[in-house]
């Protein structure tokens, strides 16, 4: 049972991370109608920037802040140079163009930082585990991830629902011509939204960096999971992204932890140890398939946003 709680917390933590990525994707899709595969590249850049700046300044926090600014700048530059030209075009064009950007960024990172990958060391006070429940210890840093993501989610909610810029963002999503006609600089708005998405991705990358190694292509597998999240949640819905991210994070982590044991009840130990991991990686996709059968537009279709 304690193990279950611990694994669930890990699941929540993965879910938080997925939410950060999915929120940016779904925001960009909902407002600019743009499919951005290169979102994972921004996640990777966030991690690389953080590792570099943390090494330069000697402080994790300073490194993280500088990395967020750098990711924001890169994101806005990408929007101005490339993405802006893709608005209003076919989704296939978005996929191909941003696929090209992924190749570009992967190679750029290899050129600048080398193929070896980096590590981002945590400050020593983060390395402890805290007792979250009697007998349940959980690494402090993972708790920090959960709490800070919740804070970001809340900020995002306030920004989109309670501020003037959020109002413009929502208005731009439902009728961009009208917003433009009312004298709002829609180009600037789009650049800002894309930058916001980039910051969210960069934040996810730098938070995850101390847990995994910082390496080329680190954004790709998680990006595909983030796609699954927004399919389940309903594209364009931030609320849906949050619910689906939690669902996917929990099912993935808990499934990986318990499915092999569970299958041992029905299968021979040998068969279970091979089939278990394969089956648990399939679990998410089977869930997605199941949801699509009943809700082809996801759990929270964007119309009810």
């Amino acid at each position, binding site marked *: 049972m304690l193990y279950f709680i611990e694994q669930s917390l890990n699941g929540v933590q993965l879910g938080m991370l997925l939410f950060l990525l999915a929120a940016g994707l779904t925001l960009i*899709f909902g407002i600019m109608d743009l*499919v951005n595969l290169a979102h994972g590249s921004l996640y990777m850049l966030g991690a690389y920037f953080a590792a570099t700046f943390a090494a330069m300044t000697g402080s994790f926090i300073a490194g993280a802040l500088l990395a967020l600014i750098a990711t924001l700048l890169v994101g806005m530059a990408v929007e101005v140079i*490339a993405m802006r*030209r*893709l608005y209003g*075009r076919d*989704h*296939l*064009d978005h*996929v*191909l*163009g941003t*696929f*090209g*950007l*992924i*190749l*570009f*960024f*992967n*190679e*750029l990172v*290899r*050129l600048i930082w080398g193929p070896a990958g980096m590590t981002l060391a945590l400050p020593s006070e983060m390395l402890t585990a805290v007792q979250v429940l009697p007998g349940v210890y959980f690494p402090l840093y993972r708790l920090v991830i959960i709490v800070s993501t919740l804070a970001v989610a809340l900020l995002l909610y306030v920004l989109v629902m309670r501020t003037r810029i959020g109002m413009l963002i929502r208005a731009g999503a439902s009728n961009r011509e009208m917003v433009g006609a009312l004298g709002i600089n829609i180009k600037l708005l789009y650049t800002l939204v894309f930058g916001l998405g980039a910051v969210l991705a960069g934040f996810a990358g730098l938070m995850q960096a101390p847990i995994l190694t910082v390496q080329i292509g680190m954004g*790709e*597998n998680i990006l*595909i999971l983030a*796609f*699954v999240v*927004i*399919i389940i949640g309903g*594209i364009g819905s931030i609320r849906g992204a949050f619910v689906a991210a939690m669902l996917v994070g929990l099912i993935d982590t808990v499934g990986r932890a318990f499915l092999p044991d569970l299958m041992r009840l029905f299968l021979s130990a040998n068969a279970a140890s*091979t*089939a278990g*991991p*394969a*089956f648990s*990686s*399939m679990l*998410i*996709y089977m869930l*997605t*398939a199941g949801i*699509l*059968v009943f809700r*082809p*537009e*996801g759990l929270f279709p964007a119309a009810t946003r």
Partner: protein
Amino acid sequence: MSRRFNTLNLLIAGVIAALALIPVYSALSGYPFLLSLFTRILILAMAAVTLNLIMGFGGMVSFGHAAYLGIGGYAVGILAKEGFNSGFLQWPVAVAASALFALAIGALSLRTRGVYFIMITLAFTQMIYYVAIGLDRYGGDDGMTIYRRSQFGGLINLSNRTVFYYLCLVLLLGTVYLVYRIVNSRFGLVIQGSRSNDRRMRAIGFPPYRYKLVCFVIGGALCGLAGALLANHTDFISPALMHWTRSGDLLVMSVLGGMGSVFGPVIGAVALLMLEETLSGLTEYWQIIIGPLFLLVVLFARGGIAGMLVGEHRG
């Protein structure tokens, strides 16, 4: 068809003639490597042609077409590992397994449209990729060598590289012809009709879902055959066969060559893979050039090479 000798048809004839002469050139010039490169080009071109059937004509943008390359390849590899070397068994199994997978994911994915469809096909391919990684007996993450190519009695010897090349060429041209016939049949017209206006097709009494699903399955099954060829070509299978970037490459080939033309993806495959080969010879960091190039193709050459020659965009 009024202008039989237009630029595009001349280019197609030129490409076919050049492809047919590659083994001769390779033998004369003493670059056996060329033969291997072009065998790969033919096989991937075949995969791109089948993708174009469902994407260019069916309007179903699948970001998971590499799955069938993997399934076809693994069908050959797994059967070979278990001691079934006959191509008469391996290849039909490769096609049938791909068709079944296409039927399953198509039935689910076609309930969605647009971006959902792109992403869901990507997700399902990722799923089968992880399944392949989990297959410890068949190499898991590292992949597995195939020690004997598919055996066809005494009929045809795949271990002869020239013979294998021409077999691939014949199968590629056969696939192109088949797709051409499908596209221009009544079935193909329904498919193209529902690409441009799904609701109207339903209004005049066609169930687009079923037609699209059949089209999706045909595309997948034919690509499974390409997968069987690819496994025989490399004598090796690994999950990398169906890595998502390969699905992306197939998309690029189709678009680069021209989605409006049945033969377009062949031109796209030749162009892309030769470009990759040239660039990777120039610099280790060739992807830094080819990535932005994809973007430029999307922005400025939407009709692809075939579209530029015809000088018009499909509606």
